[in-house]
């Protein structure tokens, strides 16, 4: 029996269910990891990284505070 024959008898009707279960397991693992109590402080700190990305040695002329630059 060739590969296509084997695949034909593989019971593919369960693929949707299998995919769903795989997703749920991985999703549960990520949720667990992300929302564990011990990680709150660490991740809140990480969330502030964009606001801490401009540390010039010399201030830009006329721009003491980057947030003063507005549109």
């Amino acid at each position: 029996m060739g590969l296509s024959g084997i695949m034909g008898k593989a019971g593919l009707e369960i693929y949707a269910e299998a995919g769903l279960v795989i997703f749920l397991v991985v999703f549960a693992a990520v949720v667990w990891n992300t929302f564990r109590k011990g990680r709150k402080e660490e991740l809140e700190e990480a969330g502030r990284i964009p606001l801490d990305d401009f540390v010039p040695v010399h201030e830009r002329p006329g721009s003491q505070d980057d947030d003063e630059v507005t549109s």
Partner: protein
Amino acid sequence: MSTEVEKFRYDDDIVRKFVGATLLWGAVAMLVGVIIALQLALPAANLDLPYTTFGRLRPLHTNAAIFAFAGNAIFAAVYYSSQRLLKARMFNDKLSKAHFWGWQGIIVSAALTLPFGITQSREYAELEWPIDLAIAVVWVIFAINFFGTIAKRRERHIYVAIWFYIATIVTVAILHIFNNIWIPAGLTKSYSVYAGVQDAFMQWWYGHNAVAFFLTTPFLGLMYYYLPKAANRPVFSYRLSILHFWSLVFIYIWAGPHHLHYTALPEWASTLGMIFSVMLWMPSWGGMINGLLTLRGAWNKVARDPVLKFFVVGITFYGMSTFEGPLLSIKSVNSLSHYTDWTIAHVHSGALGWNGFMTFGLVYWLAPRIFQTKEIYSKKLAEVHFWLGTIGILFYIVAIYAAGVTQGLMWRAFDESGRLAYPNFVETVTEIIPMYWVRVVGGVMYLVGMLLAAYNVFMTWTKRPEKYDEPVIEAAPLGEDTGPEHAPEPELAKAGGMLPSAYKIAYFVEAKWHRIWERKVFKFTVMTTLAVITASLFEIIPTFLIKSNVPTIASVQPYKPLELYGRDIYIAEGCYNCHSQMIRPFRAETERYGEYSKPGEFVYDHPFQWGSRRIGPDLHRIGGKYSHMWHVRHMKNPREVVDLSIMPAYPHMFDDDIAYDVIQPRVDAMAMLGVPYGEAVNSAEDMARQQAEQIRQEILAEGGPDLKDKDIIALIAYLQRLGTDIFKTPPEGDGAQEPTAAVNH
């Protein structure tokens, strides 16, 4: 740990270049969009020129909007934010420049080929094989530069925006490579190695995920960096952003088959696509809510800051589009919406609202910073742009939603006697012409807003300093990683020691593996790639290997050489942009078009031509439906035979001669793909000439003009063959194909 501080400068020159390109190509993309919108309302706008017909310009519009406008915006956003999030200058300035100029070269190549009918006809992947190779090279350059920057970063934690960028780079590479496997049949012509059902599956695996990983994930990365910057507050929940990322990466890739409901795609694949599409609701709305709640306590800023206005409306459109996408993937809804303008409205609420407005917010935020002017040239103009754009989108989508639902309902309507209520397709077109005009108005408003943005940024640029200041940044290099993987033992072990096996279990349970991924970019990238590839293979392998998915039909034979050439004309003219070749198994469709389409009918279709929109009727059973002369008159002037038709005229097909010399190489290329061409492998040109002469004589016999060796003859040969094989008697003996299988779907 080292206390040494390193000094460096960011490269904003590359950001300035990409911002300029974004605005330039954005104007082009939207101008072409307005032109093709006008062509649907006013067919004369096709100008009767081969280079300006809807079928040729529509791919130019989509490619320009996606890869030129949104693409350059993505690169501008990535180059600016990555350097700051990673606290490092880009890995190599020359690679940055090569990326920029290479990408612009690709865009110019697209603009110079698509109007000439040089296309693969695969939606959003139309560009021919030499340009595909160039895209691969430029993408690798971008990837080396990006990952090189990560490698020399000075920030240990990789912020979530970078995760989204990584997913984009990895997945787009996978999609591009596997969707563009072809056999060249000349410098400007190739045939997909996939055929029929498999080709359709690969195309929409690519098409769907191009939306996911080119128009969604990079813009989410953009949102997670620029929205906090513009609002001057951290993202509402960083933890939610992590969930958002992993759920999208894991789910999105599975959802592609929802583009092919009720087609010849296997039922199981279609259902799988629907289930995962519905699941996408959760992460998408989680992301939208996370974005909007970032503005908690700062809504007063939104009222006076056009950047935040654009971001808020953009994110809201993200929520709308990602609500509607799963809705459209539900089979019963899809049976109404598919092939109608409903899909077009959905796409444009995402493209104009989400991608467009996030880009404009980005550009207005970046302009004063990269041009060092403190402020944008005119805040008032930006406000005008915002309102023009918003109202323009609403005009566009409301009209086109109405058009889509109207036409969908008309297609399936029956009268009291059980016959089609609107048997003449053109009736369902003329009904929505007023809505097409409203779309033109909305599109013009959006285009004017785009031009205002370009002017505003240009004027900001004119206010730049004589020489850009390049501030010196200082940051400590990364020392030895003392992160979780180096911890002597997990927290559970601290309580009282444990056996090695228990130690490993605790290591897993405490999910230190994920924390390592977050810090180790190689592992993180591998895991992201695995998520994408695993999901893809779950669907692709069975689709390709299971024989019962595509039952062979003995009477289905390869196209004759002239028909193949005619098919290439069909492809070059972009007929698939308006006509499907896929009759769904609904009574309303079989009544209108004939026997529904079977998977086995497309086994020699490299590439497939199922289409995704019916601006004109389905053509799968057009073969033999009309005389040759009907086609001659129709192609010369559609309104001569179908009053009120909005189809362009194709006078050039009556002037251009059949290029007999290219037919043999094309047949040879198809033979290389396994199409059983038999004697045609040695005599394709002669066979084509004979068939062309036969059709010429038949047209003359019908009282038509002498069209000796004209392109129109080849096109007619193809059209008259379409969908007819299934009704023929299978050839006997050596000519027979694989054993006949059941043709029921």
